[in-house]
């Protein structure tokens, strides 16, 4: 896969089941950005967080250096909303599902790398899901060109950076986050490009799972 530039994604790779303690674990590498995710659940829940009809999902995002701040908290909420939309929480009421993400390196498109790692860890842990999701980041250059999966440099030069979480069944948008200013048509353009690129990511998930089950 060509690196950067135009409507193509950086080469990505993943590894599943690499940690022994959590119920599910996955590492996702996209170019120079890599995120490690671990999942615990469905496990015992403390009294106040218990929900009577579905599982209580919690996401923790740890940056590479420093303590988690406001950016991490807002990203955690976005990830939590996306995960709750696909996890069939009604099958595990009064239980807790905890998803922990650790940023190993940040080379641009961090939020979409976190989304992809979260989806792979949900797959690895065996939780019931109604669909899969993937994250795609688009950067709008000053002249209006759309660059998918931008590097840190391309994100800094861009006029706006948009991240979409796209589901696998009908390519609908589960979550969107934007930084900078862009017009509605430009946003639609970015969304269309992201939905096309999402197909490549879902095919990659399928190949990952195929490889994992071919070994047994």
């Amino acid at each position, binding site marked *: 896969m060509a690196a950067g530039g135009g409507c193509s994604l950086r080469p990505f790779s993943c590894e599943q089941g690499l940690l022994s303690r959590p119920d599910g674990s996955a590492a996702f590498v996209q170019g120079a950005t890599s995120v490690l995710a671990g999942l615990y659940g*469905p*496990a*015992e829940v403390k009294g106040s967080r218990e929900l009577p009809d579905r599982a209580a999902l919690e996401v923790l995002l740890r940056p590479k250096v420093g303590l988690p701040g406001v950016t991490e908290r807002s990203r955690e909420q976005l990830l939590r909303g996306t995960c709750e939309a696909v996890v069939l929480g009604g099958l595990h009421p009064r239980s807790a599902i905890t998803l922990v993400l650790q940023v190993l390196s940040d080379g641009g498109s961090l939020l979409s790398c976190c989304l992809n790692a979260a989806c792979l860890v949900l797959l690895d842990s065996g939780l*019931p899901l109604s669909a899969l999701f993937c994250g795609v980041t688009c950067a709008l250059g000053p002249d209006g060109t759309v660059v998918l999966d931008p590097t840190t440099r391309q994100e800094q030069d861009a006029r706006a950076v948009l991240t979409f979480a796209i589901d696998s069944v009908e390519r609908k948008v589960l979550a969107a986050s934007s930084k900078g200013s862009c017009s509605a048509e430009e946003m639609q353009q970015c969304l269309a490009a992201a939905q096309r690129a999402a197909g490549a990511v879902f095919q990659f998930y399928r190949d990952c799972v195929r490889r994992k*089950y071919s070994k*047994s």
Partner: protein
Amino acid sequence: AAAEECVGQVVLPGDVLLLPAHPDEDAERLRLSAGAAPRGRLLCGPGLRRCEAGLLVTKCGLLRHRQAGGGAAAAGGAYWVDSQQKRYVPVKGDHVIGIVTAKAGDLFKLDVGGSEQASLSYLAFEGATKRNRPNVQVGDLIYGQFLVANKDMEPEMVCIDSSGRSSGMGIIGQDGFLFKVSLGLIRKLLAPKCEIIQELSQLYPFELVLGMNGRIWVKAKTVQQTLIIVNILEACEYMTAEQRKQALAKLSGN
């Protein structure tokens, strides 16, 4: 995609599997066999849910199919997804190993590895009466089966079957070693004529209890033999058959 074509292949959550249309009704009526069970009754196993178009896959894994007893076409039978996971979810009828965490009057609380602790009544042992109570302490291991296990209620365990006999269940004795493996390995070990167990039994004699919640209890004559068996069972998750045979040959040669 049609369900029959995907059998044996990897399926991902969100995939919809189409089921074959209902078999011809006239052919059913002409048959004089005493097939009381309705044909075309499909069992939706773990990892699958019913939706309007057919079956919705909810877990990733290999799709499996088992024909119905009468040997009919794919109309009857069961579909399920063979997936690997580490976390156990209590299911009614499963035999599991639980660890006693608390004694609350007439009830024992057991940790079975799920999201809730299971409860076990002191009368649910063979030959237990109000005067003759079983000798269970906190920290003991119990091998029992689930009487009640669904998402809405607290799981309940018993150590007797429906006729009142213990059939191997009850308190697991002293010594031995308890460890945890993935659920897929337990299912492989519980399959009839499992090669791993047969090869191990030729190595040393040992006692083995397999819990569907991923817990295995092993006891051999000496501590060293017990630990060797534990290491081999843990490594079986990753080793191929040839690697395992080589490791066992090296051990039995020593």
